[in-house]
Every structure is written in structure tokens, then in C-alpha cells.
């Protein structure tokens, strides 16, 4: 069987105008603009079979979104080829557009001023979905996402999580075979993230759709994807199972402690102290996952601890550590 | 106090300079209708010899001076301020120890004017060569006498527009109200045509309204068409309307802020 997605030596180089400050420079730039090449994606190769759920990982600016945009057809690559469902995405053939979807967590497809129901019907017309098929799909999506109570309210009155449910649903009305999801859970709270995750899992199981998603949240990826592709500095750094990844990158946990007179105690003997965390009250150390229990009990025994948390380190840090070293 | 205005000027000038491309578009937009009226009325005057004593040259000089007067006396406060009331970002300005409208917004408008004036100058010169108007009626003294009432007319217009803007404390429909206000200006200021060519009723009403102080009165003053009595009458009207606009704005603003803080936006 031919793979659903086949990417061969895909590269994208942006030309970014170099600007100097000042009026004189602006005038000179107008006549003789200098460009700087930014290699966003460099010779990426991979294949994805039908029904796979693949996570794209990498820090901001690594080239994930650029790759996703090329696969959905929004961007022309500088060189290389891609084949999705037998189409070259950037030719933007109608049949192709009707068999895939792109959902971007930070962008709105729904109109703010009207109830989602109306935007749904508009998309039905645009995607030429027959009435009976539309009803059936809607019923299915409603079952999974509990859309009905949200449909009558103007979109601007929905919470972020509710809106995201509608955004995803509207992108799925035409039963796409391939889903590109760019940060589908961004900004959602933990329960919201979990609901979207469960839905995607169930949707994949029911329809056999191929899903590629990027996410900042490690939990999204570990829950959903059996396979991971890591892109860093535009290059493909890792492509394989999520379990192998854990072996490759020694898994770490972050332990955060809140204690009396925090400055008096030196945590570096328990693990690597991590600076610059959002939670300024706590101190954080990074330890190997299999040592968490041992170190935690030592901390509790040694220090005047008021509160202790154990969490995954941010995904950027993990990848940074693994591939930058 | 002087330092505050100096700093405000630096900030607002830099801000308006950022938007200079938009500003040029605005200028072109604003230029078109006086030029069309100019073309229409000179064409009529040429066809009929004159229109109630107005020759083609009278019309050309009238609209050429109008371009300058309108530039001096008009304002854009509603476009730069109303949204702050609507989206609540005014709160940040209310807690500062200066009046948000009478300092920052006022200076912002003045910076806008200075920039558009710079843009207008070359256009005005081009129009001058295209229409070759005869400005022999204009004297230096007339221009000097016209400056104070023009500056006060700007203040009157600014305070009225600011009062309308402050209605945003109560209603979301201030742009519609402003559109209505704009129509009043068109009707009573002499923007469409010198007021003496308007129907008698409109002339009679216009006399007592502030709108003619913004255009018709200074234009005629500059062109040397007013008698001494008319000039003095204009000064008196300016004084009266300036007091009215100050009182009105103060009242609307005070009540509005009261309401704003009561709602707790």
C-alpha cells in the first residue's frame, strides 16, 4: 500500500529583507533591498501510513508550522516534493482541499458575531456536503464533543475551550482523511486539553483518519501519538516510536518545592537546579525519572517543605537538551 | 506643565509619523470633495458669467482658502479616542494626573494637523498653478485677524467632537451621532458652497450656529469680504460658542466618567 503522506527532501528557505534603522537606510533599501536567507526547513524526509497519529515536536521556530503549511498546501517549498493522498498539496486541487483539513489553534475560522451553527452551514455549502451526510457527521461530532448547547450562542460568548471544540468540529464536517492540527490545545486548561485529546483519539479510531499534530504540551503527544517526528533548526532530528524516544532522551522530571527561608538551602546536591521558571515562589530541580521517588523522600526528610510538585519539563527544554548538546 | 506638553508632543509626533502613509491617504480622501465643489461651481459661474455676484475666481479662492481653514479647524478625536472608552483601555489613562482628552488627545490631534499640513502644502501649490487664482483681495492684516478666531474655532470643534466622543460612556452608537453632526457641518459651515448661496432659511439659522465659525467666517475674513461690523460679530460669536463648548464638554465628561467608574469597566 502506498503511504498517505510521502515527503521527499522537502526544503523551505525564506528570503527576509534586511532592514537597517533610519530614513536613509529605508530609502536605500527601497532601491537595493538586501535579503537574508532563512532556512526554515531543510531536506526533510518521512512517510506516514494511513491511520497513523504522528506528533511533530520542536521548539518555536524549528520549522514545524512551516512543514505543516507546506503539507496542507499553503506554502510552496523551495525544493523537494510532497505527496498527500496522491496529490501535490500546493497545487490546491479542489479534490485535495475537500479531503484534508488544517486546524490552527491560534486562528479563527468561525465568525465572531454569529452562532457557530451558521458558520457550520456556511462550511457545508463551501465543502459541498450533501444534507444527509452533513446531518450524520454532525450527529457523530455532537456525540463526541457535545456541541449542541454551544451552537446557538454567538461565538464571541463562548469560552476558549468551547470555541476550540467548535473550531475543530467545523474543520471536520467534510470528513477529511488527513488532519493537520497546529497547536490544537493551546491556551486550554487541563480538562479542556484532555477532552480534545480524547476526542482526537476516538475520532482516529472510528474513521481511520491520518492525523499530524504539533503541540507544546508533552501530554498531548504522549497521550495521542505512537510516533514522533522531531524537527529542530529546520532539520529532521528524530523519527520513531515514542517509547524509543524516552530511551534516547533520558527522561527527566521537574521537582518544585516551596519551603521556609528558601534561600538558606542549597538544592544542588539533590539534582540540577533549574532557573527562570514561571512560578517564582518555588525552587525547581531536574532529576532522572527513575530517581524521583528516592529524591522526593530525601527532600521531604531534609528540608522544611510546605509544598512539593512533580511535573514533566517543558518539551522545548527536553528537545533542546537532547539535540543541542 | 510645559514639560508635560513637550513630552506629549514628542510621543504623539512619533506616533503620527508612524502612520504617515495612512495620513496621506486620509489627506487625499479629504481633499476630493472641496475640489469637486470647486469644479462644479466654477463651471456654473463660467457658464452663467457669475452666480449671485460670485465669479469663477471667487469660487476658486473660496475653496482654496477652505482647504486651509478646514485643515486648521477640523479634528479626528472621535477616531483616536472613542475606542478607548469602548474597550476599557481608558482606565489606564484616568488614573494619570492629567486630563486624558485635554492633554494627550489634544496634542495628538495637533501633531496630526501639523503633519497633514506639511502634506497639504505641496498639493496646495500644485492646485494654485492648476487654477491660477487671483488672491489680490487678501491682505496681511486680514490673515492676522483671522488667525485667533480660527484657533478658537478649532477648540470649539474639538470640544464638540470630544463631547460626542464622550457619549461613548452611554451608547455604542456614537459614530452614527457623529455622522449626523458631520451633516450639520456640511449644511451650516459653508463647506458645500459659500453660505450666501444657500437657501435663506439655512443662512438665517447658520448665523447663530458655531459651524460657520469653522469655515465660512474665517474664509470670508481672509478674502477681505467682511465689513468691520461682521468681523466683530464673528469674534463675539466665537467667544460665546467657546464658552458654551467648554461648559458642555465639562459637564458631559464629568457625568461620563462618573458613570464609567460606577459601572466599573
Amino acid at each position, binding site marked *: 500500500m502506498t503511504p498517505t503522506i510521502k515527503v521527499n527532501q522537502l526544503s523551505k528557505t525564506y528570503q527576509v529583507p534586511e532592514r537597517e534603522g533610519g530614513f536613509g537606510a529605508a530609502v536605500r533599501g527601497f532601491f537595493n533591498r538586501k535579503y537574508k536567507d532563512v532556512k526554515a526547513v531543510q531536506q526533510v524526509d518521512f512517510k506516514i501510513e494511513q491511520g497513523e497519529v504522528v506528533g511533530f515536536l520542536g521548539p518555536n521556530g524549528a520549522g514545524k508550522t512551516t512543514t505543516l503549511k507546506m503539507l496542507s498546501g499553503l506554502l510552496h517549498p523551495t525544493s523537494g516534493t510532497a505527496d498527500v493522498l496522491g496529490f501535490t498539496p500546493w497545487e490546491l486541487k479542489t479534490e485535495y482541499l475537500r479531503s484534508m483539513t488544517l486546524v490552527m489553534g491560534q486562528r479563527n475560522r468561525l465568525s465572531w458575531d454569529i452562532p457557530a451553527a451558521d458558520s457550520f452551514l456556511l462550511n457545508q455549502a463551501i465543502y459541498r456536503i450533501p444534507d444527509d451526510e452533513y446531518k450524520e457527521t454532525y450527529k457523530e461530532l455532537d456525540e463526541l464533543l457535545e456541541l449542541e448547547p454551544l451552537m446557538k450562542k454567538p461565538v464571541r460568548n463562548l469560552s476558549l475551550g468551547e470555541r476550540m471544540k467548535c473550531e475543530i468540529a467545523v474543520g471536520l464536517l467534510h470528513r477529511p482523511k488527513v488532519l493537520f492540527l497546529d497547536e490544537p490545545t493551546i491556551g486550554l486548561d487541563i480538562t479542556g486539553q484532555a477532552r480534545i485529546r480524547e476526542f482526537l483519539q476516538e475520532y482516529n479510531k472510528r474513521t481511520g483518519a491520518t492525523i499530524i499534530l504539533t503541540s507544546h504540551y508533552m501530554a498531548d503527544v504522549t497521550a495521542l501519538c505512537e510516533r514522533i517526528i522531531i524537527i529542530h533548526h529546520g532539520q529532521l532530528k528524530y523519527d520513531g516510536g515514542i517509547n524509543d524516544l524516552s530511551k534516547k532522551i533520558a527522561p527527566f522530571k521537574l521537582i518544585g518545592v516551596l519551603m521556609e527561608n528558601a534561600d538558606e538551602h542549597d538544592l544542588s546536591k539533590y539534582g540540577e537546579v533549574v532557573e527562570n521558571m514561571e512560578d517564582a515562589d518555588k525552587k525547581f530541580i531536574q532529576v532522572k525519572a527513575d530517581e524521583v521517588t528516592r529524591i522526593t523522600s530525601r527532600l521531604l526528610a531534609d528540608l522544611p517543605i510546605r509544598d512539593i510538585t512533580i511535573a514533566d519539563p517543558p518539551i522545548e527544554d527536553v528537545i533542546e537538551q537532547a539535540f543541542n548538546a | 506643565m510645559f514639560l508635560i506638553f513637550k513630552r506629549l508632543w514628542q510621543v504623539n509626533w512619533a506616533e503620527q509619523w508612524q502612520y504617515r502613509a495612512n495620513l496621506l491617504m486620509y489627506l487625499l480622501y479629504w481633499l476630493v470633495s472641496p475640489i469637486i465643489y470647486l469644479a462644479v461651481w466654477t463651471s456654473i459661474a463660467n457658464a452663467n458669467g457669475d452666480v449671485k455676484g460670485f465669479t469663477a475666481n471667487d469660487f476658486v479662492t473660496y475653496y482654496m482658502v477652505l482647504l486651509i481653514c478646514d485643515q486648521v479647524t477640523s479634528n479626528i478625536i472621535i477616531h483616536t479616542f472613542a475606542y478607548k472608552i469602548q474597550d476599557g483601555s481608558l482606565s489606564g489613562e484616568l488614573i494619570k494626573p492629567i486630563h486624558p482628552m485635554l492633554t494627550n488627545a489634544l496634542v495628538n490631534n495637533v501633531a496630526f494637523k501639523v503633519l497633514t499640513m506639511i502634506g497639504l502644502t505641496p498639493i496646495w501649490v500644485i492646485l494654485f498653478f492648476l487654477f491660477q487664482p487671483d488672491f489680490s483681495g487678501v491682505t496681511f492684516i486680514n490673515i492676522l485677524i483671522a488667525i485667533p478666531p480660527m484657533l478658537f474655532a478649532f477648540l470649539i470643534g474639538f470640544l464638540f467632537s470630544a463631547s460626542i466622543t464622550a457619549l461613548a460612556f452611554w451608547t455604542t*452608537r456614537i459614530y452614527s451621532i457623529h455622522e449626523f453632526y458631520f451633516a450639520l457641518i456640511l449644511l451650516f459651515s459653508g463647506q458645500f458652497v459659500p453660505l450666501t448661496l444657500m437657501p435663506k432659511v439655512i443662512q438665517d439659522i447658520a448665523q447663530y450656529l458655531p459651524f460657520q465659525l469653522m469655515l465660512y467666517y474665517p474664509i470670508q475674513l481672509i478674502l477681505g469680504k467682511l465689513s468691520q461690523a461682521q468681523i466683530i460679530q464673528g469674534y463675539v460669536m466665537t467667544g460665546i460658542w467657546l464658552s458654551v463648548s467648554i461648559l458642555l464638554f465639562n459637564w458631559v465628561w464629568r457625568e461620563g466618567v462618573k458613570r464609567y467608574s460606577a459601572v466599573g469597566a
Partner: protein
Amino acid sequence: MHILKLLSAFLKVNIQMSLAYRADTVVNILLNLMWLAWELLSLNIIFSNTQTLGGWGLGELIALLGVFRLINTMMIAFIWPNTEKFNQSIRDGSMDYTILQPANSMFLVTFSRITVWRFWDLILAVVLIVIGINMSGDSINALQILTFILLALSGMVVIYSLWIVLIALTFWFTKFDNNVTILQALLDAGRYPATVYPVWLRIIVTFIIPIAVATTIPLQALRGELGLNQVLIFLFVGIASFVIATQVWKTGLKRYSGASS
């Protein structure tokens, strides 16, 4: 017809939107009537001081006002709201969704916002045209009416095409997002016959921002002042400008996706 289905879907959505702002709609209609009154008053003032304007009488100018309002309705009902939506979609990136929808992107960009209540303006415009022609006492045959309709449509297409080019420029110059103002600015010139303007202004409104092509010229056709040659030329201009606009739009989209450059 899929296009019609799409159009009706857009209409439904936009009716929904205007229902959400009912009171504003009423206020806007009142303001619109106020401006109509002003326009008629200004014509009255002009014609109390002269018999003809650029060779045209009061009746003809009322008819011209009708034609002008046709164009103005297109501006306000379609061009402005969609410009706003377009600029917004470039800023926040939702343009990406428009491109990935399986329908003609120029169509989507043109019709996704419609100020529905403005349609009554079209009736008003037609009423003005009929009254104006009657007042002028011109006798008009069916052929003249037909050429008028064709040239009015062609004129609208010219203005529309110009708009497409103007917004497509945003693909090249991202900061160029208030370009449509220039269109609206010169639109006012369409209220009066282009023959009254000085030569340089006539050149601008006929060739550069061709407002006159959409207002003065169709009315001249209605009065039987245009020969067959001229009618054909102006029809050709309409078609040609649409073709050019489509090409510019396509090139702009390619630019947006990084296919060219």
C-alpha cells in the same frame, strides 16, 4: 448551481449578523435617508443658481445620482465590509483558511461579508433613475435601456476589478492596507457629470480611478449619446479589467504562498 447555493449560504449568515445588530440597522437606514435628503438639497441649490451643469439638467443629475448610488451601494454593501474582513484575515492569518477552502478564493473574499439591509438602496437608486429620466423629458427606447444596463454592469465590474487589484497589493506590500480609501475618495466625483471637471481631474476619474466609466458613461448611453463603437469599447474595458484583476489576484496568492519571488 453551486455558486448560487454558496451565495445563498453567505446571505443567510449575513442576515443573521445584521439581525444581531437590529437597532444599528434602523439608525443606519435613517442616516442613509438623511444623506439622500442632503444630496437632493444640494442639487436643488445648484439648480436654483443655474439651468444646466456641464450640459445636463436637473432631471439628468437626479438620474446620475441614482447611478452613483448603485456604485455607492456596491461599495458599502460589499467592498467595505469585505475589505475590513480581508485586512483582518491578513493580519491574524485566517487568510490561510480562505485559501484552503475548496471554492474560488476571489469569490470567497468578495461575498463573505454583505451589508444586507443596503439592498433597499438599489430600489431607491432605480427610483431616482426613473424619476430623473422622466423629469428630463428624454424619450428612451428599449435599446438605450439595454445599453445602459450593460454599461452600468460593466462599470461596476471595472470598479470591482480595481478593488481586487488594490487589496491584492497587500500580498506584496503588507503595510498597504488602507488602499481602498482612494477608491472611496474619488467615488464622490461620480455625483456630477465628468464634463464639468477640469481636464486633469477628468483624466483621473476616467482612466486612473475610473469612477466616470461607472456613472457618467452609462447615463450617456441611456440618453443615446454614445455610438455603437463607444459602447463596445466600454464593454470591452469591463471584461478586460476583470480578466486583469483575476490574474493579479492569482499572482498575489502565489506570492503569498511563496511560489514566486
